[in-house]
């Protein structure tokens, strides 16, 4: 087994027992990044930074001062600011942007001595479900290069699935961590809104954006959550609640837990038959683990997508107002100040970003605000209440992460509604602000990974991870 194929927990043991050094582990990651550059997982590779950080990590390990992540190579989605390292959001308007500050979650991880190997490709500003909206080219699925990686955090998922990094830190607004994780056969976690600091994340939809990890196992996800979760004075929406020791309590028995299976998900028109069968097998495994399976109904599920796209486009159009190439970014000249804004944005944003800004500007404009944004926010309340109600009867809810496995390039790019509908199973949890974990559930006959999604009540990350850990062990 190559060093870059290890999990965080395995690499920790190897590093602390001096079986190998962080310099060797990091080199293995970097070598593989270059070997598989064709997958296009990275926008920026930080070789120099990584080599320096790996040496420092080795010194810490020798002095027995290592933390959970010391010396472990990792990647970061390019919408997350990394100090002194180019952060483009996969949009040309930020092609030259070097943040003078660092996102809180990344600060916490690097304080532990984790080694940054690069910034990963994504749909520009996180807008997309296939990574085809990146201005640095699409990311290929390592299981079948004719298929998309999923999105928007395609590069992050591929970097972990293809062992180019041991873990990745990404961002999920409506499924951007979970869906590519499912498409690439890795674990991806969207914690409750507010559990992790959003400081230093380029905002997309501020009421939905969540930072979370992508890793190879649920154990690794738990280890990462222990490091990154918690209140941050720089993010007034982060919650002050104490962070449990997620990794210590993973082994807690799930026997007797009640698992809800929403029929609106399993009986969705157009759900891939193979996907449904694989998920049903996993539900069977839950029974064998002593969990009680209960069919539930979440009739508002179908409204989550329209709510999501109205809220996202509206908040997007507002948030992206700051990306005007005046104080940073690639400025394109014009005859007036307004022309400078308009020309820079026209050339520096891909089509999907412009489309969302247009939809959002329209939805928020005079005369339409009540009909679209306010209406969507009201239906959002009902969706939240529906989940709250469901969780009075069950402990967790299980669903497929995506109605189908990874699809071919170009098949949904012109039909935007079809592309938006790929988020049908991931957007409800985002709208409700509840934790949602995607873990590998199996593979189709043609070898494409299928993801299982586990949802829990707000701030019940610990329970979601325990269930994920137990199901993962049934493989």
């Amino acid at each position, binding site marked *: 087994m190559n060093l870059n194929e290890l999990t965080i927990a395995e690499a920790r043991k190897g590093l602390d027992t001096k079986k190998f050094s962080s310099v060797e582990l990091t080199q293995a990651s970097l070598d593989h990044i270059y070997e598989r550059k064709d997958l296009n997982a990275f926008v920026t590779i930080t070789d120099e930074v990584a080599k320096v950080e790996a040496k420092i990590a080795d010194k810490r390990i020798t002095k027995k001062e290592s933390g959970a992540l010391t010396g472990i190579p990792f990647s970061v989605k390019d919408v997350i600011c990394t100090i002194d390292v180019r952060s483009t959001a996969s949009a040309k308007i930020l092609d030259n942007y070097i943040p003078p500050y660092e996102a809180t979650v990344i600060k916490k991880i690097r304080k532990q001595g984790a080694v940054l190997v690069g910034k990963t490709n994504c749909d520009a500003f996180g807008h997309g479900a296939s990574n085809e909206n990146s201005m640095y080219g699409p990311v290929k699925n390592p299981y079948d290069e004719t298929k998309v990686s999923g999105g928007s955090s395609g590069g992050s998922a591929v970097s972990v699935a293809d062992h180019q990094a041991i873990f990745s830190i990404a961002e999920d607004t409506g499924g951007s961590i979970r869906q590519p994780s499912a498409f690439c056969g890795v674990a991806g976690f969207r914690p409750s809104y507010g559990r992790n600091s959003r400081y230093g994340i380029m905002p997309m939809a501020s*009421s939905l954006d969540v930072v979370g990890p992508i890793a190879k196992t649920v154990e690794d996800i738990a280890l990462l959550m222990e490091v990154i979760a918690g209140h941050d004075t720089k993010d007034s929406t982060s919650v002050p609640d104490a962070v449990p020791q997620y990794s210590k309590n993973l082994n807690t028995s799930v026997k007797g837990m009640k698992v809800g299976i929403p029929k609106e998900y399993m009986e969705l028109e157009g759900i891939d038959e193979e996907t449904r069968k694989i998920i049903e097998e996993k539900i069977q495994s839950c029974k064998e683990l002593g969990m009680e399976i209960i069919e539930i109904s979440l009739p508002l599920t*179908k409204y989550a997508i*329209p709510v999501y796209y109205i809220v996202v486009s509206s908040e997007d159009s507002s948030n992206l107002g700051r990306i*005007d190439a*005046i*104080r*940073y970014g690639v400025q394109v000249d014009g005859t007036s100040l307004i022309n400078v804004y308009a020309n820079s944005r026209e050339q520096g944003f891909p089509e999907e970003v412009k489309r969302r*800004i247009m939809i959002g500007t329209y939805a928020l404009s005079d005369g339409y605000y009540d009909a679209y944004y306010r209406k969507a926010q009201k*239906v959002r309340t009902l969706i939240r209440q529906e989940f709250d109600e469901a969780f009075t009867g069950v402990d967790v809810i299980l669903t497929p992460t995506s109605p189908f496995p990874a699809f071919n390039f170009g098949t949904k790019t012109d039909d935007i*509604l079809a592309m938006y509908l790929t988020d049908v199973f991931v957007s409800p949890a985002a709208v409700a602000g509840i934790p949602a974990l995607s873990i590998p559930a199996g593979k189709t006959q043609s070898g494409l990974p299928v993801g299982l999604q586990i949802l829990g009540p707000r701030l019940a990350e610990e329970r979601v991870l325990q269930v994920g850990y137990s199901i993962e062990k049934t493989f």
Partner: protein
Amino acid sequence: MKLTREEIDRIATLARLSLTDQEKDKFADQISVVLTYADMLKEVNTDTVEETCQVTGLEDIMREDVEEPVSEETRKKILSQFPKKKYDLLEVKAVFDNKN
């Protein structure tokens, strides 16, 4: 409900985007598709429902109004990002222009 060219132009100006004619035509169709799809929300009765503006329940998060000093190094980094500058000042085109 297809958006008119005038509506598209108005939104593009509000959004500070100088779209091509091709983009304008495409967006006019696609925005209509999305908004028509969103019309399904009308099926849901929300007469007595409050909007969700946030999900954490946190209220009135305040901090002391004090300045946080920035190091000279950080200041230089911020200045280095300016697309156009004169000395240490950000250079922009005139905000008030008699022509507009």
